[in-house]
Protein backbone atom coordinates (compact mmCIF):
# COMPACT_ATOMS: atom_id res chain seq x y z
CA UNK A 1 0.00 0.00 0.00
CA UNK A 2 1.26 3.47 -0.80
CA UNK A 3 1.23 6.25 1.76
CA UNK A 4 -2.17 7.83 2.40
CA UNK A 5 -3.10 11.42 3.06
CA UNK A 6 -6.08 12.80 4.93
CA UNK A 7 -7.17 15.82 6.95
CA UNK A 8 -7.43 13.67 10.05
CA UNK A 9 -6.19 10.20 10.90
CA UNK A 10 -8.10 8.35 13.63
CA UNK A 11 -6.41 5.34 15.23
CA UNK A 12 -9.01 2.85 16.42
CA UNK A 13 -12.69 2.39 15.62
CA UNK A 14 -14.36 1.59 18.93
CA UNK A 15 -16.74 3.77 20.94
CA UNK A 16 -14.30 6.69 20.88
CA UNK A 17 -12.83 6.28 17.40
CA UNK A 18 -16.05 5.56 15.51
CA UNK A 19 -17.89 8.53 17.05
CA UNK A 20 -14.89 10.76 16.34
CA UNK A 21 -14.61 9.59 12.74
CA UNK A 22 -18.32 9.99 12.00
CA UNK A 23 -18.50 13.44 13.61
CA UNK A 24 -15.43 14.74 11.78
CA UNK A 25 -16.36 13.20 8.42
CA UNK A 26 -19.87 14.63 8.66
CA UNK A 27 -18.24 17.93 9.58
CA UNK A 28 -16.54 17.95 6.20
CA UNK A 29 -13.10 16.59 7.08
CA UNK A 30 -11.33 13.95 5.04
CA UNK A 31 -10.93 11.19 7.62
CA UNK A 32 -8.86 8.00 7.51
CA UNK A 33 -9.43 5.40 10.25
CA UNK A 34 -6.63 2.93 10.97
CA UNK A 35 -7.90 -0.21 12.73
CA UNK A 36 -5.60 -3.01 13.85
CA UNK A 37 -8.24 -5.74 13.68
CA UNK A 38 -10.33 -7.15 10.85
CA UNK A 39 -13.54 -5.72 9.45
CA UNK A 40 -16.13 -8.38 10.13
CA UNK A 41 -19.71 -7.95 8.96
CA UNK A 42 -21.96 -7.36 12.00
CA UNK A 43 -24.06 -10.50 11.43
CA UNK A 44 -21.23 -12.80 10.46
CA UNK A 45 -20.48 -14.26 13.89
CA UNK A 46 -22.74 -15.34 16.72
CA UNK A 47 -22.40 -13.05 19.77
CA UNK A 48 -20.23 -14.46 22.58
CA UNK A 49 -19.40 -17.52 20.48
CA UNK A 50 -16.16 -19.47 20.14
CA UNK A 51 -15.72 -17.98 16.66
CA UNK A 52 -16.20 -14.46 17.97
CA UNK A 53 -13.58 -15.06 20.65
CA UNK A 54 -11.13 -16.14 17.94
CA UNK A 55 -11.87 -13.32 15.53
CA UNK A 56 -12.67 -10.21 17.56
CA UNK A 57 -10.73 -10.41 20.83
CA UNK A 58 -7.19 -9.13 21.24
CA UNK A 59 -4.96 -12.08 22.08
CA UNK A 60 -8.16 -14.18 21.99
CA UNK A 61 -9.04 -12.70 25.35
CA UNK A 62 -5.89 -14.03 26.97
CA UNK A 63 -4.45 -10.87 28.48
CA UNK A 64 -3.78 -10.11 32.11
CA UNK A 65 -2.61 -7.27 34.31
CA UNK A 66 0.34 -8.35 36.42
CA UNK A 67 -0.10 -8.10 40.16
CA UNK A 68 -1.24 -10.02 43.17
CA UNK A 69 -3.63 -11.29 42.07
CA UNK A 70 -3.14 -10.97 38.33
CA UNK A 71 -6.34 -9.73 36.71
CA UNK A 72 -7.48 -10.93 33.29
CA UNK A 73 -8.87 -8.30 30.96
CA UNK A 74 -10.48 -8.34 27.55
CA UNK A 75 -10.29 -5.90 24.64
CA UNK A 76 -11.92 -5.96 21.25
CA UNK A 77 -9.60 -5.96 18.26
CA UNK A 78 -11.74 -5.45 15.17
CA UNK A 79 -13.61 -2.68 13.39
CA UNK A 80 -15.97 -1.46 16.12
CA UNK A 81 -13.52 -2.31 18.89
CA UNK A 82 -14.86 -3.49 22.23
CA UNK A 83 -18.41 -2.44 21.32
CA UNK A 84 -18.44 -5.60 19.19
CA UNK A 85 -17.86 -7.88 22.17
CA UNK A 86 -19.50 -6.14 25.13
CA UNK A 87 -23.04 -6.56 26.41
CA UNK A 88 -24.21 -3.17 25.11
CA UNK A 89 -25.44 -1.90 28.48
CA UNK A 90 -25.98 1.84 28.41
CA UNK A 91 -25.72 4.07 31.50
CA UNK A 92 -25.30 7.81 31.37
CA UNK A 93 -22.43 9.19 33.40
CA UNK A 94 -23.81 9.78 36.92
CA UNK A 95 -24.11 13.51 37.66
CA UNK A 96 -22.30 13.36 40.99
CA UNK A 97 -19.36 11.60 39.39
CA UNK A 98 -19.23 14.11 36.54
CA UNK A 99 -19.19 16.90 39.12
CA UNK A 100 -16.27 15.28 40.96
CA UNK A 101 -14.36 14.86 37.70
CA UNK A 102 -15.03 18.47 36.76
CA UNK A 103 -13.89 19.87 40.11
CA UNK A 104 -10.97 17.60 40.99
CA UNK A 105 -9.73 17.23 37.43
CA UNK A 106 -10.37 20.88 36.56
CA UNK A 107 -12.13 19.94 33.33
CA UNK A 108 -13.48 22.86 31.33
CA UNK A 109 -16.88 22.81 29.62
CA UNK A 110 -17.94 19.73 31.54
CA UNK A 111 -21.13 21.10 33.06
CA UNK A 112 -24.33 19.07 33.49
CA UNK A 113 -25.95 20.99 30.63
CA UNK A 114 -23.14 20.19 28.23
CA UNK A 115 -22.98 16.53 29.24
CA UNK A 116 -26.76 16.23 28.97
CA UNK A 117 -26.62 17.76 25.52
CA UNK A 118 -24.04 15.25 24.29
CA UNK A 119 -25.70 12.25 25.93
CA UNK A 120 -29.00 13.30 24.32
CA UNK A 121 -27.27 13.76 20.98
CA UNK A 122 -25.85 10.24 21.09
CA UNK A 123 -29.17 8.80 22.26
CA UNK A 124 -30.92 10.44 19.33
CA UNK A 125 -28.46 8.90 16.90
CA UNK A 126 -28.35 5.31 18.12
CA UNK A 127 -31.13 3.06 19.35
CA UNK A 128 -31.22 2.40 23.08
CA UNK A 129 -33.94 0.07 24.36
CA UNK A 130 -35.15 -2.21 27.07
CA UNK A 131 -36.36 -5.68 26.16
CA UNK A 132 -39.89 -5.67 24.74
CA UNK A 133 -41.99 -8.07 26.80
CA UNK A 134 -40.59 -10.38 29.43
CA UNK A 135 -36.82 -10.52 29.93
CA UNK A 136 -34.99 -13.81 29.46
CA UNK A 137 -35.02 -16.12 32.48
CA UNK A 138 -31.33 -15.57 33.26
CA UNK A 139 -32.10 -11.87 33.72
CA UNK A 140 -35.48 -12.32 35.43
CA UNK A 141 -33.74 -14.43 38.07
CA UNK A 142 -31.79 -11.37 39.21
CA UNK A 143 -35.03 -9.48 39.63
CA UNK A 144 -36.64 -12.45 41.37
CA UNK A 145 -33.80 -12.82 43.86
CA UNK A 146 -33.65 -9.09 44.55
CA UNK A 147 -37.40 -8.90 45.13
CA UNK A 148 -37.28 -11.75 47.63
CA UNK A 149 -34.50 -10.01 49.52
CA UNK A 150 -36.18 -6.62 49.41
CA UNK A 151 -33.37 -5.19 47.27
CA UNK A 152 -33.71 -2.78 44.40
CA UNK A 153 -32.96 -4.04 40.91
CA UNK A 154 -33.61 -2.62 37.49
CA UNK A 155 -33.37 -3.57 33.85
CA UNK A 156 -30.64 -1.50 32.26
CA UNK A 157 -31.24 -0.11 28.82
CA UNK A 158 -28.94 -1.40 26.12
CA UNK A 159 -27.65 -0.26 22.77
CA UNK A 160 -30.10 -2.57 21.06
CA UNK A 161 -32.84 -2.34 18.48
CA UNK A 162 -35.68 -4.82 18.41
CA UNK A 163 -37.57 -6.15 15.43
CA UNK A 164 -41.37 -6.63 15.67
CA UNK A 165 -40.76 -10.33 16.34
CA UNK A 166 -38.71 -9.39 19.41
CA UNK A 167 -35.34 -10.26 17.92
CA UNK A 168 -32.71 -7.90 19.28
CA UNK A 169 -29.71 -6.52 17.45
CA UNK A 170 -26.85 -4.88 19.29
CA UNK A 171 -26.05 -1.44 17.96
CA UNK A 172 -22.31 -1.82 17.76
CA UNK A 173 -20.01 0.72 16.17
CA UNK A 174 -19.58 -1.49 13.08
CA UNK A 175 -23.34 -1.29 12.65
CA UNK A 176 -23.84 2.41 13.43
CA UNK A 177 -21.12 5.05 13.56
CA UNK A 178 -18.63 3.30 11.30
CA UNK A 179 -21.12 3.12 8.38
CA UNK A 180 -22.03 6.74 9.06
CA UNK A 181 -18.40 7.74 8.86
CA UNK A 182 -18.03 5.81 5.60
CA UNK A 183 -21.17 7.38 4.16
CA UNK A 184 -19.65 10.78 4.90
CA UNK A 185 -16.50 9.85 3.02
CA UNK A 186 -14.22 8.38 5.70
CA UNK A 187 -11.83 5.64 4.68
CA UNK A 188 -11.47 2.62 6.98
CA UNK A 189 -8.13 0.80 6.81
CA UNK A 190 -8.55 -2.49 8.72
CA UNK A 191 -5.91 -5.12 9.59
CA UNK A 192 -3.41 -2.30 10.02
CA UNK A 193 -1.37 -1.56 13.11
CA UNK A 194 -0.42 1.97 14.08
CA UNK A 195 3.24 1.61 14.99
CA UNK A 196 3.90 5.17 16.14
CA UNK A 197 2.69 8.70 15.80
CA UNK A 198 4.87 10.76 13.46
CA UNK A 199 6.01 13.96 15.14
CA UNK A 200 7.95 16.75 13.46
CA UNK A 201 8.91 19.99 15.13
CA UNK A 202 6.63 19.29 18.08
CA UNK A 203 3.58 18.65 15.87
CA UNK A 204 1.88 15.38 14.97
CA UNK A 205 1.96 14.89 11.22
CA UNK A 206 0.56 11.39 10.79
CA UNK A 207 0.91 7.77 11.79
CA UNK A 208 3.44 5.12 10.74
CA UNK A 209 1.57 1.88 10.03
CA UNK A 210 2.20 -1.71 9.10
CA UNK A 211 0.05 -4.58 7.92
CA UNK A 212 0.94 -8.22 7.47
CA UNK A 213 1.07 -9.60 3.96
CA UNK A 214 -0.26 -13.12 3.25
CA UNK A 215 3.34 -14.40 3.17
CA UNK A 216 3.89 -13.18 6.75
CA UNK A 217 6.14 -10.24 5.94
CA UNK A 218 5.22 -6.70 6.95
CA UNK A 219 4.17 -3.98 4.58
CA UNK A 220 4.91 -0.52 5.98
CA UNK A 221 3.31 2.75 5.03
CA UNK A 222 2.33 6.09 6.49
CA UNK A 223 -0.93 7.94 6.83
CA UNK A 224 0.01 11.60 6.65
CA UNK A 225 -2.46 14.00 8.25
CA UNK A 226 -2.08 17.36 9.97
CA UNK A 227 -4.37 16.19 12.80
CA UNK A 228 -4.13 12.89 14.69
CA UNK A 229 -6.73 11.35 17.01
CA UNK A 230 -5.62 8.31 19.02
CA UNK A 231 -8.64 6.21 20.04
CA UNK A 232 -7.25 2.74 20.73
CA UNK A 233 -8.63 2.37 24.26
CA UNK A 234 -7.08 2.66 27.70
CA UNK A 235 -4.33 0.11 27.06
CA UNK A 236 -3.42 0.58 23.39
CA UNK A 237 -3.61 4.40 23.28
CA UNK A 238 -0.96 4.97 25.97
CA UNK A 239 1.12 2.20 24.43
CA UNK A 240 1.08 3.94 21.05
CA UNK A 241 2.01 7.28 22.59
CA UNK A 242 4.85 5.72 24.57
CA UNK A 243 6.17 3.98 21.46
CA UNK A 244 6.14 7.44 19.89
CA UNK A 245 8.33 8.85 22.65
CA UNK A 246 5.48 10.58 24.50
CA UNK A 247 5.63 9.51 28.13
CA UNK A 248 5.31 11.61 31.30
CA UNK A 249 1.93 10.77 32.83
CA UNK A 250 0.89 8.70 29.82
CA UNK A 251 0.03 5.17 30.96
CA UNK A 252 -0.18 5.93 34.66
CA UNK A 253 -3.35 5.95 36.70
CA UNK A 254 -5.00 2.92 35.09
CA UNK A 255 -8.30 2.13 36.76
CA UNK A 256 -10.84 -0.60 36.17
CA UNK A 257 -13.68 -2.57 37.70
CA UNK A 258 -12.32 -5.84 39.15
CA UNK A 259 -14.95 -8.53 38.73
CA UNK A 260 -15.46 -11.93 40.31
CA UNK A 261 -17.80 -14.48 38.77
CA UNK A 262 -20.03 -17.20 40.11
CA UNK A 263 -21.56 -20.06 38.12
CA UNK A 264 -25.05 -20.67 39.49
CA UNK A 265 -26.86 -23.93 38.93
CA UNK A 266 -30.66 -23.97 39.01
CA UNK A 267 -33.13 -26.86 39.13
CA UNK A 268 -34.36 -25.99 35.64
CA UNK A 269 -32.87 -25.14 32.23
CA UNK A 270 -31.81 -21.55 31.64
CA UNK A 271 -31.21 -19.47 28.51
CA UNK A 272 -27.66 -18.97 27.22
CA UNK A 273 -28.02 -16.77 24.14
CA UNK A 274 -27.93 -13.32 25.72
CA UNK A 275 -26.42 -11.47 28.64
CA UNK A 276 -28.77 -10.63 31.54
CA UNK A 277 -29.81 -6.99 31.42
CA UNK A 278 -30.96 -6.67 35.03
CA UNK A 279 -28.62 -5.26 37.65
CA UNK A 280 -28.94 -5.02 41.41
CA UNK A 281 -28.95 -1.33 42.34
CA UNK A 282 -29.32 -1.78 46.08
CA UNK A 283 -25.73 -1.00 46.92
CA UNK A 284 -23.52 2.10 46.60
CA UNK A 285 -22.10 2.83 43.16
CA UNK A 286 -18.83 1.11 44.01
CA UNK A 287 -20.52 -2.32 44.00
CA UNK A 288 -22.47 -3.85 41.10
CA UNK A 289 -24.16 -7.21 40.68
CA UNK A 290 -25.25 -8.55 37.30
CA UNK A 291 -25.07 -11.36 34.80
CA UNK A 292 -22.48 -12.42 32.28
CA UNK A 293 -22.16 -14.36 29.02
CA UNK A 294 -23.02 -18.00 29.68
CA UNK A 295 -22.20 -20.10 26.66
CA UNK A 296 -21.25 -23.68 27.36
CA UNK A 297 -17.57 -22.72 27.34
CA UNK A 298 -18.08 -19.75 29.66
CA UNK A 299 -20.00 -21.91 32.12
CA UNK A 300 -17.20 -24.48 32.09
CA UNK A 301 -14.60 -21.78 32.78
CA UNK A 302 -16.61 -20.43 35.70
CA UNK A 303 -17.10 -23.88 37.24
CA UNK A 304 -13.53 -25.02 36.75
CA UNK A 305 -11.96 -22.64 39.28
CA UNK A 306 -13.95 -24.01 42.17
CA UNK A 307 -14.50 -27.56 41.00
CA UNK A 308 -11.91 -28.69 38.44
CA UNK A 309 -12.74 -32.11 37.15
CA UNK A 310 -16.36 -32.03 38.37
CA UNK A 311 -17.90 -33.67 35.32
CA UNK A 312 -21.36 -33.79 36.84
CA UNK A 313 -21.36 -30.01 37.28
CA UNK A 314 -20.07 -29.44 33.76
CA UNK A 315 -22.69 -31.77 32.33
CA UNK A 316 -25.39 -29.63 33.95
CA UNK A 317 -24.35 -26.56 31.96
CA UNK A 318 -27.84 -26.14 30.48
CA UNK A 319 -29.13 -25.38 33.98
CA UNK A 320 -26.21 -23.12 34.86
CA UNK A 321 -25.55 -19.44 34.19
CA UNK A 322 -22.74 -17.06 35.09
CA UNK A 323 -23.22 -14.00 37.28
CA UNK A 324 -20.78 -11.50 38.69
CA UNK A 325 -20.07 -8.79 41.19
CA UNK A 326 -17.84 -5.88 40.16
CA UNK A 327 -16.36 -3.11 42.24
CA UNK A 328 -15.00 0.34 41.69
CA UNK A 329 -11.46 -0.25 42.84
CA UNK A 330 -9.35 2.06 44.98
CA UNK A 331 -6.24 0.57 43.42
CA UNK A 332 -4.29 1.81 40.43
CA UNK A 333 -2.29 0.36 37.61
CA UNK A 334 0.06 1.28 34.85
CA UNK A 335 0.71 0.54 31.18
CA UNK A 336 4.30 0.29 29.91
CA UNK A 337 5.87 -0.41 26.60
CA UNK A 338 9.25 -2.05 26.84
CA UNK A 339 11.91 -2.58 24.17
CA UNK A 340 11.59 -5.98 22.53
CA UNK A 341 8.01 -6.52 23.64
CA UNK A 342 5.24 -6.01 21.12
CA UNK A 343 2.36 -5.97 23.59
CA UNK A 344 2.33 -3.45 26.43
CA UNK A 345 2.93 -4.65 29.97
CA UNK A 346 0.03 -3.88 32.28
CA UNK A 347 0.20 -4.01 36.07
CA UNK A 348 -2.43 -3.35 38.69
CA UNK A 349 -2.42 -3.21 42.50
CA UNK A 350 -5.57 -4.11 44.37
CA UNK A 351 -5.90 -2.63 47.85
CA UNK A 352 -6.99 -4.55 50.92
CA UNK A 353 -10.18 -2.49 50.84
CA UNK A 354 -10.78 -3.72 47.28
CA UNK A 355 -10.48 -7.33 48.39
CA UNK A 356 -12.83 -6.71 51.28
CA UNK A 357 -15.36 -5.07 48.98
CA UNK A 358 -15.08 -7.95 46.51
CA UNK A 359 -15.75 -10.42 49.33
CA UNK A 360 -18.76 -8.40 50.40
CA UNK A 361 -20.04 -8.30 46.84
CA UNK A 362 -19.50 -12.03 46.44
CA UNK A 363 -21.52 -12.82 49.55
CA UNK A 364 -24.32 -10.51 48.37
CA UNK A 365 -24.24 -12.20 44.98
CA UNK A 366 -24.57 -15.58 46.71
CA UNK A 367 -27.54 -14.30 48.72
CA UNK A 368 -29.18 -13.10 45.52
CA UNK A 369 -28.65 -16.35 43.64
CA UNK A 370 -29.89 -18.59 46.46
CA UNK A 371 -32.93 -16.33 46.80
CA UNK A 372 -33.48 -16.77 43.05
CA UNK A 373 -33.53 -20.54 43.49
CA UNK A 374 -29.95 -21.62 42.79
CA UNK A 375 -29.00 -25.04 44.13
CA UNK A 376 -25.23 -24.81 43.75
CA UNK A 377 -22.81 -21.89 43.45
CA UNK A 378 -19.28 -22.15 42.04
CA UNK A 379 -17.18 -19.02 42.74
CA UNK A 380 -14.11 -18.09 40.69
CA UNK A 381 -11.89 -19.00 43.58
CA UNK A 382 -9.30 -21.75 43.32
CA UNK A 383 -10.63 -24.67 45.31
CA UNK A 384 -14.00 -23.08 46.00
CA UNK A 385 -15.79 -23.52 48.34
CA UNK A 386 -18.78 -24.67 46.28
CA UNK A 387 -21.93 -23.85 48.23
CA UNK A 388 -25.40 -25.39 48.33
CA UNK A 389 -26.94 -23.43 51.22
CA UNK A 390 -27.24 -19.76 52.04
CA UNK A 391 -26.09 -20.47 55.61
CA UNK A 392 -22.63 -21.35 54.32
CA UNK A 393 -22.01 -18.06 52.49
CA UNK A 394 -19.92 -16.84 55.41
CA UNK A 395 -17.13 -19.13 54.19
CA UNK A 396 -16.68 -16.90 51.11
CA UNK A 397 -15.49 -13.98 53.25
CA UNK A 398 -12.23 -15.73 54.01
CA UNK A 399 -11.92 -17.36 50.59
CA UNK A 400 -11.35 -14.08 48.75
CA UNK A 401 -7.61 -13.81 49.21
CA UNK A 402 -4.86 -12.77 46.86
CA UNK A 403 -3.63 -16.29 46.27
CA UNK A 404 -6.92 -17.92 45.38
CA UNK A 405 -9.27 -15.41 43.84
CA UNK A 406 -9.50 -15.19 40.04
CA UNK A 407 -10.57 -11.79 38.78
CA UNK A 408 -11.25 -10.25 35.41
CA UNK A 409 -12.42 -6.95 33.94
CA UNK A 410 -13.66 -5.46 30.69
CA UNK A 411 -13.83 -1.79 31.76
CA UNK A 412 -10.44 -0.10 31.49
CA UNK A 413 -9.91 3.64 31.86
CA UNK A 414 -7.87 6.64 32.96
CA UNK A 415 -4.42 6.10 31.45
CA UNK A 416 -4.32 9.52 29.71
CA UNK A 417 -6.53 11.58 31.99
CA UNK A 418 -8.05 14.86 30.80
CA UNK A 419 -8.03 18.13 32.73
CA UNK A 420 -6.29 21.44 33.17
CA UNK A 421 -3.86 20.33 35.87
CA UNK A 422 -0.65 19.24 34.11
CA UNK A 423 0.50 17.50 37.28
CA UNK A 424 -2.47 15.09 37.05
CA UNK A 425 -3.54 14.99 33.44
CA UNK A 426 -1.59 14.14 30.29
CA UNK A 427 -4.31 15.67 28.11
CA UNK A 428 -6.21 18.93 28.43
CA UNK A 429 -9.97 19.22 28.87
CA UNK A 430 -10.58 18.27 25.23
CA UNK A 431 -8.09 15.44 24.83
CA UNK A 432 -5.19 17.46 23.43
CA UNK A 433 -1.89 15.91 24.46
CA UNK A 434 0.39 18.30 26.28
CA UNK A 435 3.67 18.93 24.53
CA UNK A 436 2.67 17.72 21.06
CA UNK A 437 0.53 19.96 18.89
CA UNK A 438 -2.30 18.52 16.78
CA UNK A 439 -2.34 15.25 18.70
CA UNK A 440 -5.50 14.24 20.55
CA UNK A 441 -6.76 11.23 22.47
CA UNK A 442 -10.49 10.52 22.42
CA UNK A 443 -11.40 7.30 24.20
CA UNK A 444 -11.69 5.69 27.67
CA UNK A 445 -8.14 6.76 28.46
CA UNK A 446 -9.42 10.29 29.11
CA UNK A 447 -11.82 9.37 31.91
CA UNK A 448 -10.36 10.73 35.16
CA UNK A 449 -11.37 7.56 37.03
CA UNK A 450 -13.15 4.31 36.34
CA UNK A 451 -16.79 5.39 36.30
CA UNK A 452 -18.34 2.58 38.35
CA UNK A 453 -20.89 2.00 35.57
CA UNK A 454 -20.60 0.62 32.05
CA UNK A 455 -18.40 3.28 30.44
CA UNK A 456 -19.54 3.19 26.81
CA UNK A 457 -22.13 5.96 27.21
CA UNK A 458 -19.58 8.29 28.80
CA UNK A 459 -16.94 7.45 26.19
CA UNK A 460 -19.31 8.19 23.31
CA UNK A 461 -20.64 11.45 24.77
CA UNK A 462 -17.17 12.76 25.61
CA UNK A 463 -15.84 11.72 22.19
CA UNK A 464 -18.65 13.61 20.52
CA UNK A 465 -18.02 16.67 22.69
CA UNK A 466 -14.31 16.68 21.90
CA UNK A 467 -14.89 16.15 18.18
CA UNK A 468 -17.31 19.08 18.11
CA UNK A 469 -14.74 21.19 19.96
CA UNK A 470 -12.17 20.25 17.32
CA UNK A 471 -14.51 21.20 14.48
CA UNK A 472 -15.30 24.51 16.11
CA UNK A 473 -11.67 25.42 16.75
CA UNK A 474 -9.70 24.24 13.73
Amino acid sequence: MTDLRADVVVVGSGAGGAVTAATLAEGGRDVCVVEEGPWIAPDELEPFSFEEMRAKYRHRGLTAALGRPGIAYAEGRCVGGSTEINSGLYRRLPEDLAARWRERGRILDFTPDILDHYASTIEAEIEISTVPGAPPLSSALIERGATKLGWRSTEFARLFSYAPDGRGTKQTMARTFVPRAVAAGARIVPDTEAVRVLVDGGRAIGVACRRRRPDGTWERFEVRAPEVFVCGGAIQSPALLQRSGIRGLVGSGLEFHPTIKVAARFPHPIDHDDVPMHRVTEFPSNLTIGGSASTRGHVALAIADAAPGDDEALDAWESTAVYYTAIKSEGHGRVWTLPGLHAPVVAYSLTEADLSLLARGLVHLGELLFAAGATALYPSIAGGPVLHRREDLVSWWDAVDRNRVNLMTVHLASTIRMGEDPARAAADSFGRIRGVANLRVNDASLLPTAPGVNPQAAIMAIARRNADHFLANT
Partner: protein
Amino acid sequence: MRRIERRVVALLARGEPGAARLEAIQAYVGETLRLMPDHLRWGVALESAVLGAADAAGRAAGLLDDGRLRLILERWEASSVTPLRQYVRLLRSLTLYAGEELEHAAAPAGAVA
Protein backbone atom coordinates in the same frame (compact mmCIF):
# COMPACT_ATOMS: atom_id res chain seq x y z
CA MET B 1 3.22 -25.41 20.72
CA ARG B 2 5.65 -27.49 22.72
CA ARG B 3 5.25 -31.24 22.88
CA ILE B 4 4.84 -31.12 26.64
CA GLU B 5 1.99 -28.61 26.25
CA ARG B 6 0.23 -30.95 23.85
CA ARG B 7 0.54 -33.72 26.42
CA VAL B 8 -0.77 -31.49 29.19
CA VAL B 9 -3.78 -30.59 27.07
CA ALA B 10 -4.43 -34.28 26.40
CA LEU B 11 -4.31 -34.97 30.14
CA LEU B 12 -6.60 -32.07 31.03
CA ALA B 13 -9.18 -32.71 28.30
CA ARG B 14 -12.50 -33.84 29.69
CA GLY B 15 -13.72 -37.37 29.00
CA GLU B 16 -12.40 -39.09 25.91
CA PRO B 17 -12.65 -36.54 23.16
CA GLY B 18 -11.33 -38.76 20.36
CA ALA B 19 -8.29 -38.09 18.23
CA ALA B 20 -9.83 -35.50 15.90
CA ARG B 21 -11.46 -33.49 18.69
CA LEU B 22 -8.31 -33.63 20.79
CA GLU B 23 -6.28 -32.40 17.86
CA ALA B 24 -8.72 -29.50 17.40
CA ILE B 25 -8.46 -28.63 21.10
CA GLN B 26 -4.67 -28.78 20.96
CA ALA B 27 -4.67 -26.60 17.87
CA TYR B 28 -6.84 -24.00 19.60
CA VAL B 29 -4.74 -23.99 22.76
CA GLY B 30 -1.50 -23.84 20.78
CA GLU B 31 -2.66 -20.95 18.62
CA THR B 32 -3.98 -19.06 21.63
CA LEU B 33 -0.70 -19.49 23.50
CA ARG B 34 1.12 -18.23 20.43
CA LEU B 35 -1.05 -15.11 20.38
CA MET B 36 -0.51 -14.28 24.06
CA PRO B 37 1.40 -11.10 24.88
CA ASP B 38 5.11 -11.91 24.67
CA HIS B 39 5.92 -11.40 28.33
CA LEU B 40 3.12 -13.74 29.40
CA ARG B 41 3.96 -16.31 26.75
CA TRP B 42 7.59 -16.38 27.83
CA GLY B 43 6.54 -17.16 31.39
CA VAL B 44 4.35 -20.01 30.20
CA ALA B 45 7.11 -21.33 27.93
CA LEU B 46 9.57 -21.30 30.83
CA GLU B 47 7.21 -23.28 33.01
CA SER B 48 6.57 -25.70 30.17
CA ALA B 49 10.32 -26.20 29.87
CA VAL B 50 10.59 -26.95 33.58
CA LEU B 51 7.66 -29.33 33.39
CA GLY B 52 9.14 -31.01 30.35
CA ALA B 53 12.47 -31.44 32.11
CA ALA B 54 10.78 -32.97 35.16
CA ASP B 55 8.84 -35.31 32.95
CA ALA B 56 11.96 -36.25 31.00
CA ALA B 57 13.80 -37.03 34.23
CA GLY B 58 11.00 -39.38 35.18
CA ARG B 59 11.15 -41.05 31.81
CA ALA B 60 14.90 -41.48 32.16
CA ALA B 61 14.21 -43.21 35.45
CA GLY B 62 11.85 -45.58 33.68
CA LEU B 63 8.55 -43.88 34.63
CA LEU B 64 7.02 -43.89 31.18
CA ASP B 65 3.30 -43.47 31.76
CA ASP B 66 1.31 -40.23 32.07
CA GLY B 67 0.69 -40.81 35.77
CA ARG B 68 3.88 -39.03 36.73
CA LEU B 69 3.02 -35.96 34.61
CA ARG B 70 -0.49 -35.94 36.04
CA LEU B 71 0.96 -36.04 39.55
CA ILE B 72 3.22 -33.07 38.83
CA LEU B 73 0.26 -31.10 37.49
CA GLU B 74 -1.78 -31.89 40.59
CA ARG B 75 1.07 -30.69 42.78
CA TRP B 76 1.46 -27.50 40.76
CA GLU B 77 -2.27 -26.84 40.90
CA ALA B 78 -2.21 -27.11 44.72
CA SER B 79 1.06 -25.20 45.06
CA SER B 80 1.37 -21.98 47.03
CA VAL B 81 3.57 -20.66 44.23
CA THR B 82 1.19 -18.56 42.16
CA PRO B 83 2.86 -18.97 38.72
CA LEU B 84 2.79 -22.78 39.04
CA ARG B 85 -0.85 -22.76 40.05
CA GLN B 86 -1.76 -20.33 37.30
CA TYR B 87 0.07 -22.41 34.69
CA VAL B 88 -2.24 -25.35 35.30
CA ARG B 89 -5.27 -23.07 35.53
CA LEU B 90 -4.42 -21.44 32.22
CA LEU B 91 -4.01 -24.68 30.31
CA ARG B 92 -7.03 -26.24 31.98
CA SER B 93 -9.17 -23.18 31.16
CA LEU B 94 -8.15 -23.11 27.52
CA THR B 95 -8.60 -26.87 27.17
CA LEU B 96 -12.01 -26.84 28.84
CA TYR B 97 -13.25 -23.81 26.93
CA ALA B 98 -12.25 -25.22 23.57
CA GLY B 99 -13.51 -28.71 24.41
CA GLU B 100 -16.92 -27.54 25.60
CA GLU B 101 -17.42 -25.09 22.74
CA LEU B 102 -16.40 -27.65 20.15
CA GLU B 103 -18.69 -30.21 21.75
CA HIS B 104 -21.54 -27.71 21.64
CA ALA B 105 -20.86 -26.85 18.01
CA ALA B 106 -20.87 -30.54 17.10
CA ALA B 107 -24.15 -31.29 18.88
CA PRO B 108 -27.04 -31.96 16.49
CA ALA B 109 -29.51 -29.10 16.12
CA GLY B 110 -32.21 -29.30 18.78
CA ALA B 111 -30.05 -31.41 21.07
CA VAL B 112 -29.42 -28.47 23.37
CA ALA B 113 -31.69 -25.82 24.87
